[in-house]
């Protein structure tokens, strides 16, 4: 059975620690959540294929500036311009592509959609619970929400 926490943690470590050089601690919210409130920024992607679901990552504006700065090789980010938003989309793309690769290694073939961004007060509601993983590092807290279930067509 797929352990979503393990998959998110492994990919999060690969991207944040392995590539961006951050020291990351991960923790799972055991209760899960079926609604997500964000007053910062977020990136959302759909996962499609043999399993289907959503991935949403939220963080504060200060954290995304630090994240994007690291992705740009240390360039100081004052304002979130078009290039910063493109980088943040790419962060979502890297993360969920990593999840897709992990799923493929377990024999589950999926693809992903284009990343969508949000900024400001947003609440997502879902019928099913999300697995919630918080990754804490020197740039702040990054929350990852994911829900995956077997696709209807493959049942």
């Amino acid at each position, binding site marked *: 059975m797929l352990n979503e926490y393990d998959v998110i943690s492994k990919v999060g470590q690969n991207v944040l620690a392995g590539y961006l050089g951050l020291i990351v601690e991960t923790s799972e919210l055991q209760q899960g959540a079926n609604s997500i409130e964000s007053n910062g920024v977020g990136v959302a992607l759909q996962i499609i294929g043999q399993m289907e679901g959503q991935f949403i990552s939220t963080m504060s504006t200060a954290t995304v500036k630090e994240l994007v700065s690291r992705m*740009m090789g240390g360039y100081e980010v004052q304002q979130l311009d078009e290039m910063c938003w493109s980088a943040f989309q790419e962060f979502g793309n*890297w993360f969920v*592509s990593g999840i897709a690769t992990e799923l493929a290694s377990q024999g589950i073939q999926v693809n*992903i959609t284009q990343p969508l961004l949000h900024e400001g007060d947003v609440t997502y509601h879902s019928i099913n619970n999300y697995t919630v993983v918080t990754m804490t590092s020197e740039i702040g807290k990054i929350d990852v929400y994911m829900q995956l279930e077997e696709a209807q067509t493959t049942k």
Partner: protein
Amino acid sequence: MAKIMVVDDAAFMRKMIKEILTEGGHEVVAEAANGEEAISFYKSCNPDLITMDITMPEMDGIAAVKAIKQLNSEVKVIMCSAMGQQGMVLDAITAGAKDFVVKPFQKDRVLEAVRKVLSA
């Protein structure tokens, strides 16, 4: 030094790859945001090498590589994608790519792939 075309729908990735290639002594002669643009720019720029994303709007990278192979069977393409699963790599190589670099990547990995593909 090689003339290189960078194909990626993300402006950030085009900028990042261009910086790596330029620092490595190469010239980026064209930047395309999807497969259709890549085919059009390939005809006008005739680059020595192409870095190609896979997941893009309009036309994806696999379809673009196949189309460009029809124009020049010797074209040198390095796929640069975050989707690194074995099936995706196989599809890219079957379509005609010479190497596959998984995002996020380090500068050295990109320049090494470029060096190898150019010298092959």
